């Protein structure tokens, strides 16, 4: 059984979404994770709690609030309209924004753990050797946190691929634009097309499994090598 054109389109949208979201999350998540790992600020835990929220919230809750926020009566949507912007719901950009929130902890937390384990001592040492803060970030923290970056990338990507609730709420299921794989699977199940659902689900399962195997295998090799 081959994939239909609609399924292929959904697959493409899914991979594009996951790729864009992962890239954005690495850009935003790295400084955030760095700050969380290094800051001595008293109320840091509040930010940590906010970052972790998507872990415990049903994604539909996040999607629901996004739907309201992005809508013309919501704060974000209202602002967008005031400045002549297009509404974000039912657009690929909207999905990206929703998914960035949703997958945030999956990128930030591994990075934060990795940066924490790099520890202050080596960074101080680099400072005594004349390395500026930015210099020691790139020459000490980033290389030593490499396994964390790999984990963050794969988890962020895989989690966005597997996302359902947020997309369900703000996607609008537009083929080729906002219809993603998980929604396509849902539709197949709902319409009793179990064969096609199996094909897509099995593929997704296999892909996720292989990604995770690759990450854990690689991280283990790094540990064994004593890096």
């Amino acid at each position, binding site marked *: 059984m081959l994939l239909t054109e609609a399924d292929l389109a959904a697959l493409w949208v899914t991979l594009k979404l996951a790729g864009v979201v992962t890239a954005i999350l690495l850009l935003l998540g790295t400084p955030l994770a760095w700050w969380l790992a290094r800051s001595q600020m008293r109320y840091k835990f509040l930010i940590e709690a906010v970052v972790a929220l998507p872990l415990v919230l049903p994604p539909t809750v996040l999607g629901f609030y996004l739907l309201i926020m992005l809508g*013309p009566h*919501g704060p974000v949507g209202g602002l967008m309209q005031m400045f002549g912007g297009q509404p974000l719901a039912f657009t690929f950009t909207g999905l990206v924004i929703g998914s960035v929130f949703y997958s945030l902890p999956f990128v930030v937390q591994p990075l934060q753990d990795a940066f924490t384990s790099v520890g202050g001592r080596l960074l101080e040492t680099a400072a005594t050797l004349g390395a500026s803060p930015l210099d020691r970030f790139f020459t000490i923290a980033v290389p030593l946190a490499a396994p964390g970056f790999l984990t963050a990338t794969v988890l962020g990507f895989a989690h966005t691929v597997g996302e359902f609730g947020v997309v*369900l709420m703000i996607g609008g*299921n537009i083929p080729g634009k906002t219809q993603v794989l998980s929604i396509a699977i849902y*539709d197949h199940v709902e319409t009793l097309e179990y064969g096609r659902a199996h094909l897509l689900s099995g593929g997704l399962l296999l892909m996720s499994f292989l990604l995770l195997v690759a990450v854990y295998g690689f991280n283990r090799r790094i540990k064994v090598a004593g890096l």
Partner: protein
Amino acid sequence: MMQVTKGVVLILSLLISTVSASAELYVAVASNFAGVMSAIAEQFEKQTGHQVRLVFGSTGKHYAQIQHGAPYDAFFAADDKRPILLEREGIALGGSRFTYAMGKLVLWSPEASLVDAQGKVLQIASFRYLAIANPRLAPYGRAAKQVLAFNGLWEKMQSRIVMGENIGQTYQFVKSGNAALGFVSYSQVLSQQGGVEGSMWMIPSEVYLPIVQQAVLIKDNTAARALLKFIQEKPAREMIEQYGYGLP
């Protein structure tokens, strides 16, 4: 020792008496029928002393669950397709299937003057998004597609259509303003006081195939039979109409 034995006997007898006096029913109900079904079940419980546990959800999911042995006594679907399938598969009780409500489709917007009483707004198309339920999944979506097709607008509307996975989500798209208007069920927009907020076109029932919501019995027991009978009697039928549904 005597004390313990006495206690056990007491608990056992209590359990048995509960079972015999009033039964506990598990009923799978289509989400769109949640409001009215809760009200009906309350009446039913008052009159019979039975306990009704309602489980709301998508008809597709309920169907799959029942297929795999979910312990429901009765199933109130959002269409007739799944009850028919269950009957054919020998899972539902033969001959128990009946239509308990007919869905009424409306084109609705929370904006006061957007939708006119003839639905001309669709021709003018001064909106960005039109929300409908996924026609492949939801009976209301299928009906919406028929309405658009009847007016020769299905192809033209493609770039404006956003789809909810079910009619509840479709309503959410419109209610939140992300889609300016949408095909939803009359029961969703009808308030308990009988009014409708915003503007609405009640679609004439000739332009779409009836949205038939059917129920079947999954397990044969007197309490479940009583519930199915109760729902076809006058007080319940009046409530169904009051909530914005048609009757067969």
